Structures are given as structure tokens and as C-alpha cells.
């Protein structure tokens, strides 16, 4: 049985006490070592949830537990050591004048001794393949490189969980793939838990589990396979369906030999090929 690492218990949150709920009665668990994708339309509450997980805001109702710690003003600093965040805009999260200074910033804040700090900074940059850029100024980097440095800044603190809040949405296709590949390798080598808040359904299709948010509530959770069976329901929620699922559906509707809605193009090609070679 997977171990539950974070529990959200009946969370409700409003930015403005007279306004509408940004999140309402949200409950779910995050399991150790999983890649969890959180999807939903703009304004569905995804990013609000990320801010609550990290104690940037506190829910008015309900509670969040990380490990054994209940999130509160008193525990927020301990919890931030366990949950690292990478945000959307690569240009808004640089504080250092060089790549290594930037990664060191978080460690300095935590009072880590210099020798250990130097080693951690180097290791973190090595694991995102940015160790050749130690003394570069951030504005000379590409968007993908900047996001990798931001990830290194998070890694240097050795969190258990990394939250990507639309961290690839401002990057070009190459930058996006760079960042996702980096995170995949980290997850494997460091047994990290990854929470990815995203509009990119092709990326969500590769997650272990998906939570669909709608109007501040959890609409559905399940494996990508389960979620993408929802089909037109997802479109009605303002989302989309990954291409292989769309393609499977079109072919199936013409009575072509497609047994199910495939999540990867390779699977679909393989099925078409197999059925063709039998004919």
C-alpha cells in the first residue's frame, strides 16, 4: 500500500471573506513517490491549492497535514523545507546575480554552513545539468535553463515534494521538454514526490494520478486511463483530450479495429498494425 504523505482534510478558502469560495470542501491525499497532475480550467482553484500546500495562504476551514506535521503559522517553516515550489514565470523567481548565488539563497536563509552549502549548490546544479553555468548571470539563460536553476534552488533544500505550478507554460517546446525530463530523472533518482499543476494534458497523461478541479472543488480523481475516459465531460469543464485518445475515438466511431481509448500514440499504432497484419 502506498504511504500517504500529505492529507488535505475538507479545505475551504476564500481570498475575500465577502467573496466566493476559491476552494470548497477539498479533500485528497498525496502519496509518497507519486507524480500527481492537477488539472482544471483557469480559476478552478489549482494555483490556490499550491499556495495552501506551501503555507503562502492558510485555509479558513479544514486542515493540511504533511508527514506528522499539521500546517500552521508555527510549522510553516518546517513544512517549507519539505515542499519546494517552482512557479510559472522564470523571470520572477531569480534573486541571485549568478546562477550559484541564486541556488545558495535558500540555503543561506536556512543557516546552512558554508562548506556544506557549496557542496549542495554544486550537486543540485549538477542534477539539473546546469553545473557548467555556475557564474553565469540569469538573464543570459534560456527560459528552460532558468526553470532548471529554479528547480536546483528547490532541490538544494532537499525537499520530499516538489510542486510545479504551471512551471512549463511559458517555455517553448524544447524548454518544456528539458524541464520535464529533468524532473522525471530527479523523481526516479531521489524518490521525490511530484505535484504538477498544468494545462498540458499530454503531460498529465504521463502522470501516475490525476486530480481534476472544477470551480474550486475536486471533480474527479483517478489514473490517467480513468480520467480520460471522461471524454466530452472534460471538454465541458474547459479542458481537452490528449491527441491519442481523440484519434482512438475517431477511428472507433468508424468501426475500425480500435479496442479502447489509448493514452499513447505508440500503443494505438501498435494496435492498428497488429490488426492489419492479421487481415
Amino acid at each position, binding site marked *: 500500500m502506498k504511504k500517504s504523505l500529505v492529507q488535505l482534510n475538507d479545505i475551504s478558502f476564500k481570498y475575500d471573506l465577502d467573496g466566493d469560495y476559491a476552494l470548497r470542501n477539498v479533500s485528497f491525499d498525496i502519496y509518497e513517490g507519486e507524480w500527481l497532475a492537477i488539472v482544471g480550467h*483557469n480559476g478552478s482553484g489549482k494555483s490556490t491549492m499550491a499556495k495552501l500546500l506551501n503555507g503562502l495562504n492558510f485555509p479558513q476551514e479544514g486542515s493540511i497535514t504533511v508527514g506528522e506535521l499539521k500546517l500552521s503559522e508555527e510549522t510553516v517553516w518546517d513544512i517549507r523545507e519539505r515542499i519546494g515550489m517552482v512557479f510559472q514565470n522564470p523571470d520572477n523567481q531569480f534573486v541571485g546575480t549568478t546562477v550559484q548565488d541564486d541556488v545558495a539563497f535558500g540555503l543561506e536563509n536556512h543557516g546552512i554552513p558554508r562548506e556544506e552549502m557549496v557542496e549542495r549548490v554544486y550537486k543540485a546544479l549538477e542534477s539539473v545539468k546546469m553545473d557548467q553555468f555556475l557564474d553565469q548571470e540569469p538573464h543570459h539563460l*534560456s527560459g528552460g535553463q532558468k526553470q532548471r536553476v529554479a528547480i536546483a534552488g528547490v532541490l538544494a533544500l532537499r525537499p520530499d515534494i516538489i510542486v510545479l505550478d504551471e512551471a512549463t507554460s511559458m517555455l517553448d517546446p524544447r524548454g518544456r521538454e528539458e524541464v520535464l525530463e529533468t524532473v522525471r530523472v530527479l523523481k526516479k533518482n531521489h524518490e521525490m514526490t511530484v505535484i504538477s499543476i498544468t494545462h498540458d494534458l499530454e503531460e498529465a497523461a504521463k502522470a501516475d494520478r490525476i486530480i481534476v478541479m472544477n470551480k474550486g472543488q475536486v471533480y474527479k480523481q483517478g489514473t490517467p486511463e480513468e480520467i480520460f475516459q471522461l471524454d466530452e465531460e472534460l471538454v465541458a469543464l474547459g479542458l*481537452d483530450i490528449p491527441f491519442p485518445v481523440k*484519434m482512438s475515438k*475517431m477511428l472507433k466511431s468508424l468501426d475500425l479495429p480500435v479496442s479502447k481509448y489509448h493514452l499513447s500514440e505508440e500503443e494505438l499504432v501498435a494496435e*492498428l498494425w497488429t490488426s492489419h497484419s492479421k487481415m
Partner: protein
Amino acid sequence: MDISLKNVEYRYQVDTPFERLAIKDVSIDIPAGTFLAIIGHTGSGKSTVLQHLNALLKPTGGEVVLGDKVITADKKQKNLKEVRQRVGIVFQFPEHQLFEETVEKDICFGPMNFGVSEKEAKIRAREAIAHVGLSEEILEKSPFDLSGGQMRRVAIAGVLAMNPDVIVLDEPTAGLDPRGRKEIMDMFSDLHKQRKLSTILVTHSMEDASRYADKIVIMHSGQVYRTGTPLEIFSNPEELIKMGLDVPEVVKFQQKLERAFQRKFSKTCLTIEEITEEISSFLKRGDVQ
């Protein structure tokens, strides 16, 4: 308004140690009514080209023809105001540029800056807000009380209210959810037809380029790498992939099928309907050529 770039070169910070060649030998023809997509990596020179389209930058070589104005390195240009009214640019994340107290004032700011009367500007604001699919009640609201998607539409309405002939869009769907993306692109496609605009779309999205554009320009290392219709451009996907660019999902899928079946399809498919038809006729015939 016809636009044409002839052998345009642009260097940043000329005659300083920081001088840098951003684009060179760029020639692009954009006759009135064209829907053009410009694609390329970050740093390929797309944004530099974009800023020549309404004379925000003056070329350091070659010439830029904007309607009846010819802009060259050695000629001092006056009266660029008219050009800037006729070519509206929607920059990335345009909602960051909203600043007025009400949506109406924000939309009126542009046209009034170009000498339109307040009365006329308000009429235009009403038209523009309808064009971007919002209701008139929103005109009285503060732009900062709106959702991200609404703010973006208001910012776009501000550009439309200047009644441009040409509209330039820099990554107009960045950060939007899939429905928002489709709605905004369909809106531009409708505006393009109804207002008979020229539309120039700078994008990373090959899906949008292939679906909406009549013509695609690929920029690479500051130069035009290729120009053609979507069909011409995507008929050679290997080349694009080698450059680290994406190709539309349908094209990628066709490649995988062709590899598995060791057979070329009769044409390059750009839509899911086209490829479904190809697969269907192929499977039903059941022959391998």
C-alpha cells in the same frame, strides 16, 4: 495594408562593444488579408521582426514597407503615428498593461491618444467589447476585478478599438486553459474574416499555425529558414524536428504510422479528419504497397 520586409537587418546597440546582430536578410511579403504565422525558437529573431511591423524598431539595413511608408536605416521618418494606429500589436500577457480605473477608460485610451473624440472612442469601446465576446456591463468595472481570461480580452479590445488594418499577436494564448485558448484563437480567426484584417501570429504552437494560418514563416538564428503554406511546411517534418521544433500532433502520428507500416500515405494530413480517412481507406483496402 500591404507589408513587406526586404532584406531587413537589425543590430542591437550599434557602435558599442555590445553590438549584436539579431536578424539579417529577412524578406517577408504580407499582402493585405493574409493570416501569417511566424514560428521559431526563443531567440530566433521572431520578436525583433515583430517590432519592425509597426516601426517600433528601424532596420539597420534593408527596408520595411508599411502601406505607403518606406522605412530604411538612413531616412528620418516622421509621422509614424498613422502606421502605429493601422498596425495594432497585442503583446504577450497584454493584461499586464491594463492601468485605467474602468474597462471603458482603458479601451478608450488608445483611440483618444490617436486623436479620436471621447464620444467616438466610447462607441468604439462598445463595439470592441462585443467583438471580444464580453458583455457591455463589464465596461463600468475595474479591469483588476476581472478574471485573467477576461482581462486578456479587455486588453485585446483596447487594440481593436484603434481600428487597425493589421493585427500582430505575440503568443496570444500563453497561460490560458485549453478552452480559453480555443476561444481566443477562434475569435481572432472570426475578426480576421469579418474585419478583413491582416493577422500576424507569433507562436510556438504548431497546432495553431497549421489550423489558422494561410502562410507560415520559420525563423532560425535570425534568418528566414523557410516560407510556405502549412501543407508545404509540414510535408517535411523530419527537417523541423531536427531543428528542435515541434510539428502538429497529426503530422507526428502520421510519421509513426508510416514507420510502422513501412508505407507512405498518399498525402500529408493536417487534420484529424483527414488522417482518419487515410487510415480507414488503407485498412479497408488492406494492401501494403
